[in-house]
């Protein structure tokens, strides 16, 4: 996981805009823009009520620290965000915002809870909803059902992992670790769209923000992974962390049904899953202690393939050549991955530290071969 990624919700905001108007829009909101004056101690918003639809937010950082600005749903999911707004600089954020209540949040120094300001988008509810074909609606509905099912299936597996940790059984916990992550990894872009959950359950030690203390602030799977494989022991703190993991995943399971999902966000989500593989798994960074990277790898590919399969009726019609290419590259990558497991149903993959440089290169080549055409799926779907 990377904290700075574009979330599905944010992608949705942009996509909804495009599909509704049929062309890309240049920034022309002008005087209708909401001005945000951010400083080290304030987050002043020029208006707290504005019409729903395309909204431009002009941020000026008048403070002395780098800041970031979020628009959040009431449940803290991210509508849109902009990071790294330097002192004395301006930034402009554009998003499609439906009628409802929101918060605009400035985070001086880019840490902590930030300074929140309640705002309201007025107008007919859902006015900005994109028009979609029945096929697209079917794909969205089926994908929503998929992400919900993945969360539901994950909970008992995570529970088994947490139980083993709480029982102090290192070997059982090690065995339950990778399977407990599969559902999350299959739907990671959606899971990450709940901006507050991902940093709690899937952050790696190097993903902690400045000022965070690994001893206190590092929670989730990878903290326990380190205890199990690097320290080879479970202490009382780990047992508490197991409880926290279950609480956070339960929160995810409750929220996941409400995720913002559109055909293009499904497509770009599939591409993002391959990005996850390319930047984290193929390098062995994700599971640096357990070396179970190939399990995550497989899960990411499965999630991407599910997304593609659901969109395939649309993609096949709009870009048959692309869909042929994707079929071939998914098959090739799956064949390559099968070399690293005993049979096609097993999720016991070769430990990644046993995978040599040349083999990693081959896997990386396979990921590039799939990810490049996959990056064109959103365009094929939006046609």
């Amino acid at each position, binding site marked *: 996981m990377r904290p700075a990624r574009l979330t599905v919700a944010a*992608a949705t905001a942009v996509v909804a805009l495009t599909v509704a108007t049929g062309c890309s829009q240049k920034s022309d909101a002008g005087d209708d823009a909401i001005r945000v004056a951010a400083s080290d101690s304030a987050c002043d918003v020029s208006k707290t009520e504005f019409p729903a639809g395309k909204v431009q937010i002009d941020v000026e950082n008048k403070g002395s620290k780098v800041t970031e600005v979020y628009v959040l749903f009431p449940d803290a999911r991210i509508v849109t965000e902009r990071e790294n707004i330097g002192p004395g600089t301006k930034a402009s954020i554009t998003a499609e915002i439906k009628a409802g209540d929101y918060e605009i949040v400035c985070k001086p120094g880019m840490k902590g809870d930030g300074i929140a300001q309640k705002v309201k988008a007025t107008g007919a509810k859902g006015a900005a909803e994109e028009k979609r074909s029945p096929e697209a609606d079917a794909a969205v509905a089926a994908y929503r059902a998929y992400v919900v099912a993945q969360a539901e299936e994950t909970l008992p597996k995570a529970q088994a992992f947490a139980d083993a940790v709480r029982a102090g059984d290192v070997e059982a916990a090690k065995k339950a670790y990778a399977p407990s992550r599969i559902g999350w990894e299959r739907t990671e872009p959606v899971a990450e769209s709940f901006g507050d959950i991902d940093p709690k359950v899937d952050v790696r030690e190097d993903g902690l923000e400045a000022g965070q203390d690994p001893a206190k602030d590092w929670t989730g799977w990878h903290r326990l992974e380190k205890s199990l494989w690097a320290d080879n022991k479970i202490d009382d703190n780990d047992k508490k962390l197991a409880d926290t993991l279950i609480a956070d995943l339960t929160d995810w399971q409750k929220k996941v049904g409400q995720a913002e999902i559109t055909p293009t966000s499904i497509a770009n989500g599939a591409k993002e899953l391959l990005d996850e593989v390319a930047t984290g798994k193929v390098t062995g960074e994700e599971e640096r202690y357990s070396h179970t990277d190939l399990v995550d790898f497989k899960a990411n590919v499965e999630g991407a393939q599910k997304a593609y399969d659901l969109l395939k009726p649309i993609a096949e019609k709009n870009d048959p050549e692309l869909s042929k290419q994707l079929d071939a590259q998914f098959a090739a990558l799956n064949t390559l991955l099968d070399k690293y497991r005993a049979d096609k149903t097993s999720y016991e993959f070769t430990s990644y530290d046993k995978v040599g*440089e040349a083999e990693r290169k081959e896997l990386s*080549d396979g990921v590039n*071969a799939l990810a*490049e055409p996959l990056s*064109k799926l959103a*365009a094929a779907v*939006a046609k």
Partner: protein
Amino acid sequence: MTESQPAAEQPQQDGGAAPAAAAAAPSRRAVLGWGGAGLALGAAAAGGAAAAFGGGSDMVSASAAGAAVPFHGAHQAGIASAVQDRLHFAAFDVKTKDRAALVGLLKEWTAAARLMTAGLPVGDVYEGLPEAPPTDTGEALGLKASRLTLTVGFGPGLFAKDRFGLEGRRPEALVDLELFPGDNLDPARSGGDLCVQACADDPQVAVHAIRQLARIGFGRVAVRWSQLGFGKTSSTTPDEQTPRNMMGFKDGTRNISGTDKAALDKHVWVGAGDGSDWLTGGSYLVARRIRMNIETWDRTPLQEQEDIFGRDKGEGAPVGKSKEHDEPFLKAMKPQAHVRLAHPDTNNGATILRRGYSFTDGTDGLGRLDAGLFFLAYQRDVRTGFVPIQRNLAKSDVLNEYIQHVGSAVFAVPPGVRDKDDWWGRALFA
């Protein structure tokens, strides 16, 4: 095809695809507000630069930096062409088993190269769908053509049995290089089924070109290794000041001139009777990554440095002579001097066209500069070109104490793309 060859050998130089492409896609220059006229200006400037090369000023390359080198011609650009300042060289493994897919790739690469060498992006940069990645990555937008040349080569692996049906077409002269004494070759920096040499006066233009081709190729090819080069170490324009290598010596004093048609025909271009008709007008490329032991070299006394090369460090004059271009008297040099051993007279006349570049890939784990010469040599036949020279050097060159060959590759370089309907390797796959 180079700007320094006679105009008669440059069909399509000013017509053909580039202006047509300018109408279809926004030019980098169009972005600068020069419009289509800028492209015509670029083509004219290339001709002007050819005329100006006689001047003997190192200002020439600066003034020519924006120009476009014609892509179409009997020979590929980037061989006899005046050497540009920067290099990005990439070797690829072919991943597809499908001959048609490989042919499709070469056609797409050719089309992209035609655009990029004219200073144009490959497709949309910011005009496309917002939810899709742009087709061209955009970092060369607003930059001039920068004399970009793209030169493609075919490695021995392409001709392997049961692969693409090309086993009968492997040229005899495309030999697998022997392991020379002292070689310490890293397989991860050696070989490759295909290569692309991108030369330009702006490193960003060269890197952009390789990046687009790699991207187009994903799924069909994968980058095996690549090398950036920053300072040309030999020129094909002998009237310009001879550049220096990382050891501080002028390198390439007696290189083949890009305008010396007789020498090119004799030593560089594959002739009609040489075998492998598909390669007529092409050449052979040997690429070697030569690491230098920079720190020990820098502690070597001046006299010893000069003895090792057989030339003086300041002027570049051969031992006993006063001017760089004076005819060397080999017997005046130490028996194992580099220049003496590399000279055609020592090697039965073996002569190669060099267009290597200096490289520095930072420092190694021991804090030593990871630097040296990325040696690129073109020749009519590897067996009578690079091989005898390198045998001779590997055996006894005193320079060997300060260098090590760590990467190696050999390629057959097909002839030029003749017009807008032609593509790299058409004759091979015909």
